[in-house]
């Protein structure tokens, strides 16, 4: 009999532990998240997509801006997955590189601006929860994640662009032969 009592208590205890975590997440993260996302959403609506498009299109000529500012703007204002529509401003051989660069920013941005990809928050949040449990502040991690990601998306953009160009040339050669 005791065995069953233990079993039952153990069973429910597992979910009580889960419930505690849930309450912690809901009261700890959601209120700030809601206010932050509301403010950013309103800001995006005020700025308007047309203005962003006009500005973003200016960043496409320069290789460094094309794989840093351009994908960051698209991710911030259009969010995942509509951000990838900005590929339309680029010539064909740069589109895969832009996609690669933009999509690689859709998690790093969530540390500072969770609105951009709210449904995939836990890539960052999952690891960040551990930092919170240790009583450490999340700020340094979020900022470094953001900054390192800028360098990473630049590298990805450049590497993917050159691979794309190479493959396109090879394909043209095959067609010609």
């Amino acid at each position, binding site marked *: 009999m005791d065995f069953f009592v233990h079993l039952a208590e153990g069973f429910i205890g*597992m979910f009580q*532990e889960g*419930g505690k*975590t*849930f309450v912690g*997440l*809901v009261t700890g993260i*959601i209120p700030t*998240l*809601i206010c932050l*996302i*509301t*403010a950013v*959403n*309103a800001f995006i*609506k005020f700025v308007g997509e047309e203005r962003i498009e006009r500005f973003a299109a200016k960043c496409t000529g320069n290789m460094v801006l094309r794989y840093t500012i351009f994908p960051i703007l698209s991710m911030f204002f259009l969010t995942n*997955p*509509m951000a*990838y*529509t900005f*590929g339309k401003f*680029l010539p*064909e*051989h740069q*589109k*895969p*590189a832009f*996609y*690669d660069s933009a*999509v690689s920013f*859709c*998690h*790093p941005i969530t540390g500072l601006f969770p609105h951009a990809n*709210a*449904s995939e*928050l*836990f*890539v960052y949040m*999952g*690891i960040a*929860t*551990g*930092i*919170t*449990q*240790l009583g*450490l502040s999340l700020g*340094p*991690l979020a900022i*470094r*994640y953001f900054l*390192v990601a800028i360098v*990473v998306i630049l*590298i*990805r953009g450049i*590497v*993917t662009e050159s*691979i794309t160009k190479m*493959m396109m040339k090879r*394909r043209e050669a095959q067609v010609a032969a």
Partner: protein
Amino acid sequence: MSNYRAVLVTKATSGWGGPLTILPTDEKPYIASITGGGIHPVAARIAELTGGIAVDGFSNKVEPDEMACVIIDCGGTARCGVYPKLGVLTVDVMPASPSGPLINFIKETNFVSGVKESHIELLNEVASTAESTSATKKSAQELKAEARAKVASMQSNQPTRKPNFIEKIGRAMGGVVGTFYQAGRDTVDQVLRNILPFMAFVSTLIGIILFTGIGDILANVIKPLAGNLIGLLVISIVCALPFLSPLLGPGAVIAQVVGVLVGVEIGRGNIPPQLALPALFAINPQVGCDFVPVGLTLGEAKPETIEVGVPAVLLSRQITGPVAVILAYVASIGLYTE
């Protein structure tokens, strides 16, 4: 025979619903503007293109069954639903999405929001009115002339006035408040539909890990991998394998679950906190690999580009995935160490 023309009204990128085709008829000649007095430019534009008659529905009563469409500036509770319920095509100049007590009546077929003058296009076909109208005693022209005269008399009493200063401020305030309100609605929607369900899943997972002791077993697996640079590099190389990465991508679920596992171990002190940064990159070199064709299509890429683009991105990740981990490892020096 009638001179009415049909227009197509599309939504703004931030708006909802539509596109609506608006075609006034002799029975429904009015383009009602119920925007707090005056005729809204959108209403004026629709009237100009269709040949309908713009009326200030705020100051003059117009029967709903005589309206070809109605222009409102509702942020999303009352008017939004009333006119769709009455069967009137509704054009909202604010980017509202369906809400309020009458939400069930708001459909893409009777409602379009966020509309500006630039969203109104003339449809080429010249509309022919139903045969029944020609059977009525008055000709269409006469009816229309009568309606115009009626409106002219209504408007001559109160000449078309420019919105005054107070009205302008009122509208601007209304715009700001409406935008914030809509932003809040979008946010809560997102939290309810996306964030809370995942929190429930993650909490249950963490509860099971912490309570059952599975955590200790997992720690033995995760620690040697996520607890040092070599292990993290191995994870990133494996996750970026071109035949594996598209399978690991969908919904970032794998990355999220692994993230939670690593997070739990960091919280329990099994993995040093500064490794959180390289770990974030190590668990995620496959980001978006499942989505390349869709993402490229969104960017209006040609089919040939997509054919080349998919392997290009997958190949590139094999190189840049581990590079990102090394970069992050270097950048984590000094993080969370006194």
